[in-house]
């Protein structure tokens, strides 16, 4: 369904990426930055292919993706569930929402020491960190979505005598879906960041600990290989979410181009 104009844009952005890679290679080849700190893309990709053939790459990427996904899913369940409950109840909004506004601006990494005290240097600590950090955008967008259902739809529901469950499931949830999906997307970005932060703290596998260890060992190509993989994970998850969004929101009028 891709129109020619979109293909053209895709080709253009691909060319820009290639040009940046070439610039990176050129800077590295001419030694403007010491090779110890900045390997060329050739050496970074060599490190990647080496780890790929040894299978180490899959293990590390798998660990990071699994942590990110689990933490994000926990946060999604809590964020959407709690957000819906608060969003449909004006009472809860009045009493609970201000508290959230107080906790929300806390940087998630600041609670890492607290999480370590309770859970130690474990996977559960990383999960808690991810869930705590990424729950906020989901919670707030879900509350916003559920509390901003058009009053006319509420009246339609009353006139049709829908019961409470039907009102939530058939009216409020789909009405809030665009907001919820926006929150899921923001949460996913935060989940990836915190998965890496968590892994750098515990140093028990995953791309985060790989990057940290590589930096301590002055293995610059390995650092860059890890960063490239993180970029690819971010890209892939974003593409997946965009596809989900397209599918769930196909009723929305296409944005004007």
């Amino acid at each position: 369904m891709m129109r020619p104009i979109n293909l053209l844009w895709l080709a253009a952005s691909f060319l820009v990426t290639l040009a940046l890679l070439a610039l990176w290679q050129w800077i590295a080849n001419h030694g403007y930055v010491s090779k110890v700190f900045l390997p060329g893309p050739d050496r970074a990709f060599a490190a990647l292919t080496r780890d790929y053939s040894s299978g180490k790459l899959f293990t590390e990427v798998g660990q990071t993706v699994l942590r990110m996904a689990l933490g994000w899913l926990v946060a999604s369940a809590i964020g959407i569930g709690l957000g819906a409950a608060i969003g449909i109840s004006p009472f809860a909004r009045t009493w609970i929402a201000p508290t959230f506004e107080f906790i929300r601006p806390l940087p998630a990494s600041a609670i890492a020491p607290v999480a370590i005290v309770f859970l130690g240097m474990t996977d559960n600590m990383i999960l808690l960190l991810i869930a705590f950090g990424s729950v906020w955008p989901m919670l707030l967008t879900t509350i916003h979505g559920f509390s901003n259902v058009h009053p006319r739809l509420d009246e339609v529901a009353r006139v049709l005598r829908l019961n409470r469950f039907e009102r939530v499931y058939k009216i409020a949830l789909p009405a809030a879906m665009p907001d919820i999906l926006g929150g899921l997307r923001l949460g996913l970005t935060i989940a990836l960041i915190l998965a890496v932060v968590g892994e750098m703290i515990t140093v028990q596998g995953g791309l985060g600990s790989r990057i940290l260890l590589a930096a301590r060992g002055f293995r610059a190509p390995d650092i860059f290989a890890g960063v490239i993989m993180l970029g690819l994970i971010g890209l892939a998850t974003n593409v997946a979410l965009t596809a989900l969004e397209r599918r769930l929101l196909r009723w929305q009028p296409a944005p004007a181009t």
Partner: protein
Amino acid sequence: MTATLHQFERNFEDAPRAAAKTGRKPLISLKGVGLSFGSHEVLQDINVDIGEGEFVCVIGPSGCGKTTLLRILSGLIQASRGTVSYRGKAQTEPASDIAIVFQDYANALLPWRTASQNISLALEAAATPRAERKDRIAHLLEKVGLSKHADKYPSEMSGGMQQRLQIARCLAQNPSVILMDEPFGALDAMTRQKLQDEILAIVSESNVTAFFVTHDLEEAIYLADRVIALEPNPGRIAELIDVPLARPRNQLTTREEPEFLALRRKLFDFVLRYE
């Protein structure tokens, strides 16, 4: 609009009810109805009986409480004084056989549901068995001329089509009463005239009672058996005007009748007093 055998049978069954129309057995009865928000009086001492199968239009300058009166009838809001009875019982909450056509169809339709699915909502609400829904939906879509657009989302439809869809969803409720709040106000003149005739056909086919709020005086005369003229501050009934024009009505000939023109002059003079 094709007259099916089904509709014919309904008309036949409804014949005694239609005969009762002249006797005007009140279906909805308002006695001394008033509404205040704090110290602000919106409606004052509204007394009117609406008969089964009657088409009543409400006109009046803006701020006279037309829409508020419709909402009280629907049970969405409660009067502060007086009684509203529907079929002899106090009207305290929306009834399943009273449908409302809102003016802002774009907000009243579910944008994430297709035309069929929007109609389905009313059937789901009435717990219609899944097996029956498909035929009912197809029938209703045909009735409002949207058969070819069953799988379109509201955002893919014109304003006139969206309002037709909302009307179809209301008909899915099998209503005895349809309340319409300036339903054609946002539509262009040609579409409005077409929909006026369609709503008249639907109402006469199924013998529903219609309560129609509008600011278009000619529309009120064209559609109504009776026009309620409200005056503002506070909103109260200024006059109840019978419309003795023959049915079925015709966009050209009815609007040229001396009776129509005389009523038009009368209502314009009435509204001008408040300009």
